[in-house]
C-alpha cells in the first residue's frame, strides 16, 4: 500500500504542475467577485485556449481530435494537481464545464464522426460554449417525461418547447437538447437528442434569478427552431440512451465540489469566540469539524481508491454517485456550522462581514442547488441502491403506456 506515483505518473505530474504554475493563478478566495462577467469569460477563454493547445482539455481523448491521447490516471492526476490552483473562480471553468464534462463526452461516445470533427476541437480550445437543455418545468428527476417536441421538417427538424435550469444558456453557442419525437410510444422510447444552435431566431434565453441574487441558470424557450438532421445525436427514438451517457458523466465530475474545505472551517473555529472561549474548544464544534474532515478528506481518499482501481483496469461505474452525495450535503452543513459559530453576528451578510464570509454565504446559497443539479440526493440514492446494490426498481405505472396517454 503506497501513495507513490509510478515513474511515468510522477513525470506526468511534474509536467502538469509546471504547466499549471506557468498558466494558472494559485488558489485563493475572492478574486472572481472583482471581475465583471465579460472579463471573466475572456480570461477563461484564454486559459482554455492554452490548455487545449497542450492537449490538457481532454486528456483521455484522441490526439487527432485535440485531446492528449492519455490515460484515465493522467486525467485524475491533472484533476488532483489543479485543486492547488484557482481554476474555478479566476479561470471560470464554470463557463466550459458543461461542454467539457457533459456535452463533449456525449458527442464523443454517441455522436457521428462528422460531429466529432466539427464540435470537439473548438470546444477544447475554448472557442465554443455549450449548455445542456434537459430539464423542463414539468420534469427534472423524471427526465424521460420531457415534452419539448421535435417534428420532421423535410429532411430536417423543428423543435418547440421550454427548457429550464440551463446553466450558462445566456452565453452558450450550442445546446444539447433532449426532445420528444414520438408521443405515441412509451416515454423512454419516443425521445431523440439534438444539438441546437443557441444564437438563432426562435431561441429565447431568459435568466432565472436565484436566491443568491445571481443568475447562472436560465429558462430557454424554443419556438419552431430549425435543426439539421446532421445535428441529431444518436438514433431517432434513441435519445434516452444518449441522455444516460450525459448524466453518468455529470456525477463523476460533481465530486470536485467542496464548497468549504475543512482547513477553512478549522481556521474559523480557531479564530472565532463562542460562549467566551475559542469555538474550537467546544465539543459540538469539534464533532462537526471531525465530520467535515471525515467527509471532505474521505472523498479525496475515494479518488485514490478510484485511481488504484483504474490502474488495475477497472472502468468508472455508478458508485461515483457517492462522492456528490457526500460532498454537497457536507458543504451545506459546513456553511451552517460556520454561521452558527458566529452567533448573532452571523446574521450579517458577507457584504457586511467581509470576503471570507461571502464565500461561506455563497456555499450556503449554492449547496442546496448542487444537492439537486445533476441528480438529486434521492435519485443518487436510487442509483446506488439499484445499480450497485441490485435492488429492484420502483414499481412504475408509466413504463409501458404511450406517453400521450399518461395522465397528468
Amino acid at each position, binding site marked *: 500500500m503506497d501513495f507513490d506515483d509510478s515513474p511515468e505518473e510522477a513525470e506526468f505530474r511534474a509536467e502538469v504542475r509546471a504547466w499549471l504554475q506557468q498558466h494558472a493563478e494559485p488558489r485563493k478566495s475572492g478574486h472572481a467577485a472583482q471581475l465583471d462577467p465579460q472579463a471573466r469569460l475572456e480570461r477563461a477563454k484564454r486559459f482554455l485556449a492554452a490548455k487545449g493547445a497542450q492537449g490538457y482539455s481532454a486528456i483521455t481523448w484522441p490526439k487527432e481530435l485535440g485531446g492528449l491521447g492519455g490515460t484515465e490516471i493522467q486525467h485524475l492526476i491533472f484533476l488532483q494537481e489543479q485543486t492547488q490552483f484557482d481554476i474555478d473562480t479566476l479561470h471560470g471553468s464554470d463557463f466550459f464545464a458543461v461542454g467539457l464534462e457533459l456535452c463533449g463526452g456525449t458527442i464523443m461516445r454517441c455522436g457521428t464522426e462528422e460531429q466529432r470533427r466539427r464540435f470537439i476541437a473548438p470546444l477544447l480550445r475554448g472557442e465554443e460554449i455549450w449548455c445542456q437543455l434537459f430539464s423542463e418545468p414539468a420534469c427534472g428527476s423524471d427526465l424521460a417525461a420531457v415534452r419539448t417536441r421535435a417534428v420532421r421538417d423535410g429532411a430536417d427538424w423543428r423543435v418547440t418547447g421550454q427548457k429550464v435550469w440551463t446553466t450558462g444558456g445566456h452565453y452558450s453557442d450550442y445546446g444539447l437538447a433532449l426532445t420528444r419525437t414520438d408521443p405515441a410510444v412509451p416515454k423512454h422510447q419516443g425521445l431523440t437528442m439534438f444539438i441546437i444552435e443557441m444564437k438563432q431566431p426562435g431561441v429565447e434565453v431568459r435568466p432565472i434569478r436565484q436566491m443568491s441574487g445571481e443568475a447562472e441558470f436560465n429558462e430557454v424557450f424554443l419556438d419552431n427552431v430549425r435543426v439539421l438532421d446532421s445535428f441529431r445525436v444518436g438514433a431517432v427514438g434513441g435519445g434516452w440512451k444518449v441522455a444516460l451517457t450525459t448524466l453518468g458523466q455529470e456525477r463523476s465530475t460533481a465530486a470536485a465540489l467542496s464548497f468549504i474545505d475543512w482547513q477553512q472551517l478549522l481556521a474559523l473555529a480557531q479564530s472565532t469566540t463562542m460562549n467566551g472561549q475559542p469555538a474550537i474548544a467546544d465539543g459540538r464544534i469539534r464533532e462537526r*469539524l471531525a465530520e467535515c474532515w471525515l467527509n471532505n478528506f*474521505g472523498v479525496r481518499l475515494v479518488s485514490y481508491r478510484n485511481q488504484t482501481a483504474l490502474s488495475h483496469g477497472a472502468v468508472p461505474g455508478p458508485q461515483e454517485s457517492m462522492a456528490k452525495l457526500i460532498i454537497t450535503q457536507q458543504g451545506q452543513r459546513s456553511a451552517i456550522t460556520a454561521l452558527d459559530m458566529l452567533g448573532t453576528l452571523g446574521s450579517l451578510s458577507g457584504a457586511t462581514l467581509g470576503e471570507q464570509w461571502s464565500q461561506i454565504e455563497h456555499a450556503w446559497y449554492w449547496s442546496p442547488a448542487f444537492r439537486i443539479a445533476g441528480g438529486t440526493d434521492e435519485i443518487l440514492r436510487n442509483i446506488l441502491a439499484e445499480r450497485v446494490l441490485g435492488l429492484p426498481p420502483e414499481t412504475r405505472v408509466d413504463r409501458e403506456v404511450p406517453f400521450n396517454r399518461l395522465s397528468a
Partner: protein
Amino acid sequence: MNFDFSPEQEQFRDQLRRMLERADGRGQGRRILEKQAEHYSSSIWQGLAELGVQAAAIPEKHAGLGLGPLELCVAAEEIGRVLAPIPFLSSIGLCAEAIRLFGSAQQQSTWLPGLAAGSTIGTWGFAENNLTAGASETRLTSGRLFGTKVPVFDGMAAAVMLVVAKDERGAPVCALCDLTQPGVTRLPAETLDPTRPAALIRFEGAPAEALARGDDAAWQRLRQRAAVLLAFEQLGSAEAALEMARTYALDRSAFGRKIGSFQAIKHKLADMYVKIELARCHCYYGAWAISTDAPETPLAAAGARCSATDALDYAAQENIQIHGGIGVTWESDCQLFYRRARLNALMLGSRYEWQDRLIAALQRQ
C-alpha cells in the same frame, strides 16, 4: 499509487473467508449467547491459528510469520464480517503487539511464541470504574500491581495481560502481568455483547513487569494501531449487516411487491453503503499509516475509528428496522450485529474521545 491490499494479501483474505464461513462465526456467537459455550469459540481460534492469523505480525524468531499490520487488517475485516467470537483484538491487536513493539528480548521470547500459536491468550486493561466515587487508579509499585481494571475484555480466558497503570511517580506505564499468579482475582463482568465477554480483575500485589519501552507514548501508539484494527473489524461487520438487510429486502414482500423496491428501504440501504465505503477509505488510510509508521497515524487512526463506528452503528440499527418485528426477536441474527456494533463503539473509547483526538491531530498538522 496503490491504495489497496496486494494480491497476496487478497489471497490471504480469500483463505480466511472460506475458513470463517465454514466455521459459522455467527452460529458460534449464538452458542455463547445461549450459554452453550464459554468465553470464545476455540474451533475458530484454532482454525485461524492453522492459517497463521495470530502469528502473522510476530517475528519469525518468535515463531511468527514476520508479516505486518496489513495482514492483521485483512484478518480483522474478515473476523468482523462473521462476528467471530474470538479474542483477536485483545490477544493479538493489543497484547502481542505491545510486547512485539515495546517489550524486552526476554519479554518477547517468554510470551510471543505462545501468543503466535494461539495457545496463550493475552488481553489488555486500560479502563477503570469511573462511576464510583473514590475509585483509585491501578498502580505498579516495586514490581507489584494494586488496583482494579474493568472491563477487561476476554479477561476470563486470558493468561497474560497488558495493564496500563501508573508508576511510583504517577506516570503512565504499560506493564505485563501473568494472570495465573497469586494476587489476581477475576470475576466475570457481563457485557452488552456476550460474544465479546469481559472480566473485572482485581490486583492485590500481583507480580508484574513494565514493558521495556512501555511509557505513555507507547500506549498512545498502541491504542492508535488497535483502533485501526478494530475499525477493520467494524467495517467487516457493517458490510455483513448491509448484506443481511439487502438479502431480506430482496426476499420480503409487502403491499404486493418486494420491500427492496420501496425508496424508503432503498435509501436506508444506499446510506449504509455510502457510510461503509467512506469508512473503507478511512480504514485503508489507517492501514497505510500504521504499516509505514507515518506521521499522519494519529489522524488516520482517529479517522478510521470514527468513520467505522458511524458505519457499523448505522448499519446495525437500520438492519433491524428493515427487518421489522422479526428484527428485534431473540431468534434473529440482527441482535448479534446490534450488540457487537455498540460494544465495538465503546471499547477503546467512544466516538467522543476519538473525535477529540481527530481534532487534536488536525490542530497539530
